[in-house]
């Protein structure tokens, strides 16, 4: 069993650009000693190190602003750390999150191709799967309407349907397990369970302790950008529950 994801001393900051404009830069040229209001920075991840073995299912828990989504995006390749090393030994990674990365002017049909191609599928593969994807998402005729006319539920379902069919080696799920009506929830939970039981690696951010206890091999607990604990599900959840009680 190989280590499919390895993080070593990762630090990551967000930079706020409010103060960065040409006027400031030109002023800085003339008055190099002048104190320009510092670019605001937020440390999203501090000194994070851990590894995940392939085929495991890892849950990530933590309060708001803990850095969970940032961590997922880092693994997906959306960000590069400011320092530290991250190694991901997977050919395809799929990130499912609350934004859906669609081009809202284009139709659902076209977006299936666009997203599918980005997720590593070839056009002929998408040609074969497109009907299955449309059916799974439950969108039917509206598939040819522009995405901007879709409800948020429709968008989530479509994103889910595409990502699932791309069969990635690593699936990152950011809190979207609760989407859609009961029928869709049943479908998607079934698929997620299949993926979890298969040799795919799944990393899941969720506030639903029950689900995490059920499906995860290990839990990663983040708090304000720091790694509090990473270990067997039962242990970490117990600690987490204690922590929550003490907060009250």
């Amino acid at each position: 069993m190989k280590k499919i994801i390895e993080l070593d001393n990762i630090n990551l900051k967000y930079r706020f650009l409010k103060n960065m404009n040409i006027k400031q830069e030109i002023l800085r040229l003339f008055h190099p000693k002048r104190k320009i209001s510092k670019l605001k920075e937020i440390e999203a991840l501090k000194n994070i190190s851990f590894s995940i073995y392939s085929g495991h299912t890892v849950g990530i828990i933590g309060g708001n602003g803990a850095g969970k989504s940032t961590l997922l995006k880092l693994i997906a390749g959306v960000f590069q750390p400011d320092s530290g090393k991250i190694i991901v030994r997977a050919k395809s990674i799929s990130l499912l999150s609350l934004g859906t990365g669609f081009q809202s002017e284009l139709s659902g049909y076209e977006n299936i191709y666009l997203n599918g191609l980005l997720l590593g599928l070839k056009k002929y593969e998408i040609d074969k799967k497109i009907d299955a994807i449309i059916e799974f998402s439950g969108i039917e005729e509206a598939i040819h309407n522009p995405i901007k006319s879709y409800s948020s539920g429709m968008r989530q379902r479509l994103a889910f349907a595409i990502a699932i069919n791309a069969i990635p080696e690593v699936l990152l799920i950011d809190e979207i397990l609760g989407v859609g009506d009961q029928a869709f929830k049943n479908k998607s939970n079934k698929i997620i369970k299949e993926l979890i039981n298969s040799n795919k690696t799944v990393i899941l951010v969720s506030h639903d302790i029950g689900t995490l206890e059920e499906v995860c091999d290990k839990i990663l607990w983040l708090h304000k950008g720091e790694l509090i604990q990473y270990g067997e599900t039962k242990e970490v959840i117990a600690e987490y529950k204690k922590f929550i009680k003490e907060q009250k």
Partner: protein
Amino acid sequence: MSFLRRVINDLKKYREYMIFCIKSSIKLQVAGTNLGYFWWILDPLFFMFVYTVFVLVIRGKTNPEFPIFIFCALVPWKWTATSISGSADSIAKKRGILEQIYIPKFIFPLMDVVINLSKFIFGIVVLLVLLPLFKINFSFHIFEAIVVVIVQGVFLIGLSLIIAHLGIYFRDIRNILQFAIQLWFYMSPGIYTLEYIPEKYRFLWWFNPMTTFFYSYRNTFMYNCPPLYLNLFIILIISLILVIIGLIIIYKSDKNYTKVV
């Protein structure tokens, strides 16, 4: 240079995506309008009309080829103007999808230049139809325009890459570009010839690549002579350097763009 290999690998990997993206973007350009693709013909024609009237008003007369003279400059100019003004935003506007999945960013300014190229080609087709209407004889030299198109393409890609990178960090660039492009047009011999510029300043105009492009297009389409190969060669070298610089700076920031809020 292993970074060139990275560019080629990325182009191969994202080839199908880029082709699909370009095709849907082109369809999208006409989706909101009633006249659709017809606008790609009307647009350059209208501007030709406007500038002809403008010069008539100022000078009272023009020679009969003047509308074509302008048209030969307007079509390449449109390609330049839309590519450059669009480039400041080309990576920034894709924020949504960039927060979901990794895509090498350089493909966005690249795709925008190609999308605008398709409109340019349309304009050239219109030009070819207009030439006999204005009784201009053309010869095999029009094929040499392809060389000019290639050099202009490389030039625009180089500039777009750099401006797209700056556009993420300096939001003001988009405003500045509005004026810069206006000024640039009037500083290019689009609606006038260099004869109107006093001799001692004329050399300055040659620092502007559009001067070379305009003259080359006019040579091939109107005057039956070759484009300005020496100038084009120099511009090509400079453009290739711009492309390489653009690719390097975009790759360096490739996974940092989304951290900028």
